[in-house]
């Protein structure tokens, strides 16, 4: 055992590993940052390249791309109000507000620190408690998934603080959008109006690009012809990063744990983790008003949340051979092509490989910190690009991104439609983030609800007799009623 660990450590630090990580993390930054190109897509594109590599090298390349891409999403979320990946949607609100205040570098750095800390946290969880976590994750049946989704949906309350009613409307609208396409339980098509393309459903990525990027491009372009007198570049000097980091340490630690927990459950994903972390950070924060208007804590929470997922998604993959999301499904493919079948046997048959992957994940995060530290300075300069150059280029990237999801123009049309929604809705006070939440959580809530009732033969008690489910439902109840009760109390006093 000890020998294996030492050998693996030696393997990880081989020169070509380090080199491949360097390259793939950087490629990940770019994939994550470009709207429409996600970490998932990057990993899928990387896959054929890794087929010819030795197993360790192949996994390092994929992990570098995955972690880099998950962090990279926050770069564009902060700088241009466009989450590069769905997982960074929670970062947009505070990140962009900070960037507008000239604190782009600070925000980027906070996101980097939080991401790296959470990444290492979850790699350690993978190293030490993977079997226990995977056992717990298996406990998540339909009832538990439903309760988790409901808990997630209560976040609509905290991300649409100005007008709860309008937030709920958008959330429900998002859930409606997610019902388009083939009914995941019955297999019949819904709201597809006979269109082949709609049978496939509305893809999350084009919807995301539309809601955030396209709408922002329209907004910005309305004033692009005005020469603003204020200097475009008002980048403040970054405050001492370490001190900043320590100030938010508690949030980061908590969010890393949430991310790791969510990541270990197959079928969840980084978007849910970052929203849950954000919600929890806001709930426990003393300055709630700050959230959404440029809170460092908010960025730290959201980014630690989504990067906490990175190591944890490998837990079900490596211990059970079950990929929890698309990225790990691609990694499963990569391991299979290398002749390694992930699963309960892998720890016995290729323990060295397992440890190499785990240490590799830690190394990936360390490299990410180093590279990110320099890249942040470079990325922050995007703020200096004149809008009349930035917008058309962004628009092109958006189209490429939407098209690339499935190589179809239909997705680009979907993107435009959602761009219109994202542009018009906020003008009437309807926030778009709850809609995204609805699109992400709607399918989980619906399918698990129906599955739970099928398994229980229509017995509704299943949601409260399962302990984990009960806990989440109670948490949801508290999270909804607490603000209400508080305001009632305040009125009485």
């Amino acid at each position, binding site marked *: 055992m000890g020998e294996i660990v030492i050998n693996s450590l030696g393997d990880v630090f081989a020169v070509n590993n380090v080199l491949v990580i360097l390259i793939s993390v950087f490629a990940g930054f770019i994939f994550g940052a470009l709207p429409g190109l996600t970490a998932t897509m990057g990993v899928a594109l990387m896959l054929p390249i890794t087929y010819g590599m030795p197993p360790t090298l192949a996994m390092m390349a994929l992990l570098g791309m995955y972690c880099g891409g998950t962090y990279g999403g926050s770069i564009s979320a902060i700088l241009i109000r466009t989450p590069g990946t769905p997982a960074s949607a929670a970062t947009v609100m505070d990140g962009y507000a900070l960037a507008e205040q000239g604190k782009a570098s600070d925000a980027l750095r906070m996101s980097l620190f939080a991401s790296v800390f959470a990444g290492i946290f979850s790699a350690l969880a993978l190293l030490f408690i993977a079997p226990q976590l995977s056992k717990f994750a298996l406990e*998540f049946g339909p009832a538990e998934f439903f309760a988790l989704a409901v808990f997630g949906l209560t976040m609509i309350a905290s991300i649409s603080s100005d007008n709860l009613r309008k937030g709920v409307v958008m959330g429900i609208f998002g859930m409606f959008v997610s019902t388009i396409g083939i009914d995941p339980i019955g297999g019949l098509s819904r709201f597809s109006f006979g269109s082949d393309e709609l049978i496939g459903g509305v893809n999350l990525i084009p919807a995301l690009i539309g809601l955030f990027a396209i709408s922002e491009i329209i907004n910005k372009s309305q004033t692009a012809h005005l020469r603003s007198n204020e200097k475009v570049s008002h980048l403040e000097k970054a405050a001492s990063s370490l001190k900043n980091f320590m100030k938010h340490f508690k949030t980061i630690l908590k969010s890393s744990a949430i991310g790791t927990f969510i990541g270990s459950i197959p079928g969840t994903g980084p978007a849910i983790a970052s929203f849950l972390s954000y919600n929890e950070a806001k709930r426990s924060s003393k300055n709630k008003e700050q959230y959404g208007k440029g809170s460092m804590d908010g960025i730290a929470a959201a980014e630690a949340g989504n990067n906490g997922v990175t190591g944890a998604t490998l837990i079900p993959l490596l211990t059970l051979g*079950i990929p929890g999301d698309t990225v790990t*499904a691609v990694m499963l493919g990569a391991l299979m092509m290398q002749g390694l079948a992930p699963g309960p046997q892998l720890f016995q048959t290729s323990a060295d490989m397992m440890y190499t992957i785990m240490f590799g994940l830690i190394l990936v995060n360390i490299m990410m910190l180093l590279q990110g530290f320099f890249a942040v300075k470079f990325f922050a300069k995007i703020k200096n690009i004149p809008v009349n150059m930035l917008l058309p280029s962004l628009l092109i*990237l958006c189209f490429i991104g939407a098209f690339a999801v*499935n190589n179809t123009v239909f997705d680009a049309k979907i993107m435009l439609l959602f761009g219109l929604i994202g542009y018009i809705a906020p003008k009437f006070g309807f926030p778009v983030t709850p809609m995204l939440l609805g699109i992400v959580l709607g399918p989980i809530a619906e399918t698990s609800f129906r599955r739970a009732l099928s398994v229980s033969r229509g017995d509704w008690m299943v949601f409260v007799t399962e302990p984990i489910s009960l806990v989440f439902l109670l948490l949801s109840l508290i999270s909804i009623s607490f603000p209400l009760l508080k305001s009632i109390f305040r009125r009485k006093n």
Partner: protein
Amino acid sequence: MKKTMRSFVVLLSFLFILAACGSNSDENATGNSNGGGEDSVDYPTQPIEIIVPWAAGGSSDQTARALAEAMSSNINQDVTVTNREGAGGTIATAEVAQTQPDAHTILLDAVGVFTTQPHLKNVQYSIDDFKAISGLTYEPIVLAVNADSPWDSLDDLITEKKSDTQISYGHSGAGGLPDLAQAAFFNQAGINAESIAYDGQNPAVSALLGGHVDTIAAHPGSIMQHVDSGDIKILGVFSPERFEKLPDVPTFKEKGYSIDMSVWKFLLVSQETSDEVKNKLTSIVNDAMASDQFQQFLKDANLTEQSLSGEEVIERLKKNKSQHGKIIENMGLSAE
């Protein structure tokens, strides 16, 4: 926008470097080894694209990529793989059927796209839109239960007919073959059972491991590891022959249930393709499938080769279509 441009260039060059790291010494191309009269056909004149109607990383995608690699080392053109997922494979299939591209576009498809999907919904294609090149792979479907389950054999499960227990069975999606296979069995055995659809095979396997469903039907390739680790028991095989790695597990046919379901995959081209080009392509594919490289892949990925000629593929698809249609009708899922 110099920066983005520059980063694109940087990214591209990085990917090339990575690709260079990746390519082994597989470049000992054997040149044009397919002699004979087919050389008169001018094909391929440009890169060949294999369209996979499912996501990257899945078993279809892996098969396509392994085949592409094996093919491109025998011909002077590149062979690329494009993933075009959606709606159970029907979107990509409909697209090829409607655009009728030339033989440089090959479609990889699985049996269900032609045998179950047309019964479940209106689709914009039929077998007649295509010519088949050859069969590709074959994966049996097995019935599995959790190790803690009271049933140790198919006979144990069949006796549940007398009790009034209701069984919940999980599968990779409504109308898919694992769903149909179990529905047909529980129906024929007279067992009261409820279908629980999951989003793909993996979630169904984790539901079985977590004890959330009583049985699942799945491909043995990916659950054998759980059988080896003692977490899952396999009770029966939905094919006419036993599965070679589990010689003690009976088939449903042996137990008196006439169910024959397995997933097999094949390659198609537009029906406008001329016979000469089709024959040339068939020989390229056959050479690739016979290569050591591809055979090694099949072994690693737990897949079995399905050697069928193009005509046999079409014939079998038509036969399967009517069989599957009957079961779907019995289940009340039929769109017609």
